[in-house]
């Protein structure tokens, strides 16, 4: 399984629809300070079902919606859609391609989608729960988070290992 395509609209600094097609091997993301690289990482985490907006550097859930610039007005909704190649059927779904989508509105209302049908947040978390993804600690390391392995208490390290096993 791999992340095939990422579509972002209205999420943080991504205003008009941005589509990125990733390859199965190594994908390198570069760019100057403040241009949106970590926002892209946040979009992937958010689509995987991140429930705590503080892990995406926000304070309120609606902080992920594009809030305007000197020359553009804020938007009313953020949408991220991720298409995963499921040829090896690692995800417990009968499709060889799985698309997860997540929306949030200024009202705080959220919507979740799995292959175009509306689902609950819990359903998204469930399909990823066997894979090791979306769990903090080893496959997704955000900016400044690397040292947590050494800085934490021995018990935190145990929790990481327990989640991995």
């Amino acid at each position, binding site marked *: *399984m*791999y*992340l095939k395509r990422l579509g972002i609209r209205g999420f*943080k*600094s*991504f*205003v008009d629809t*941005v589509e*990125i097609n*990733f*390859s*199965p*091997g*190594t*994908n*390198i*993301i*570069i*760019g*100057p*300070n*403040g*241009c*949106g*690289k*970590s926002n*892209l*990482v946040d979009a*992937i985490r958010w689509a995987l079902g991140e429930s705590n907006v503080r892990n995406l550097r926000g304070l309120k859930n609606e902080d992920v919606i594009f809030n305007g*610039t*000197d*020359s*553009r007005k804020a938007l009313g909704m953020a949408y991220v859609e991720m298409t*995963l190649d499921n040829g090896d059927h690692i995800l417990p779904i009968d499709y060889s391609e799985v698309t997860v989508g997540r929306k949030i509105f200024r009202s705080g209302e959220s919507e979740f989608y799995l292959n175009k049908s509306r689902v609950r947040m819990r359903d998204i978390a469930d399909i990823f729960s066997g*894979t*090791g*993804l979306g769990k903090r600690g*080893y*496959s*997704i*390391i*955000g*900016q*400044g*988070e*690397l*040292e947590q*392995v*050494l800085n934490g*208490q*021995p*018990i*935190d*390290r*145990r929790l*990481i*290992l*327990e989640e*991995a*096993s």
Partner: protein
Amino acid sequence: FHAFLLQVNESFKRTFTEIFDGGEAQLKLETQDNPLEAGVEIEVKIPGKKIQALSLLSGGERALTCIAFIFSLLRLKPTPFCLFDEIDASLDETNLIRFSDFIKSMAHRMQFIVVTHRQSAIEAGENIYGVTMPEKGISSVIAINISEAKSLAG
């Protein structure tokens, strides 16, 4: 859990000595009354130096030790993809190259999505995406080839 810990310990020893080209490493349970609640301690020896408190390690040594730990887990329990955001910030040029070589060696069985602003890390990837802001405050992404990438890394 205990059986898994032994496997991770093996993997960590192997991965650490590969990345550091020597040295020793081990994971062990804290000595504590309840083995079901005992945390996991990390002990490492950088090549040529003595084992000492983790706090005394240098910034780059700590970063590389964490990277060895992460990779030792990924080798045992691969995930479909890995997402790393600038985890190479403290590494010097030599260690940066070791880190990117390690990613290259694992890329056949896992997808890697790696954010970096270091020139040498760009060489680890076949596929490069440049994020820019041609309009202030609004991100845009373009796929680029490696020669363009070297001038864009900013």
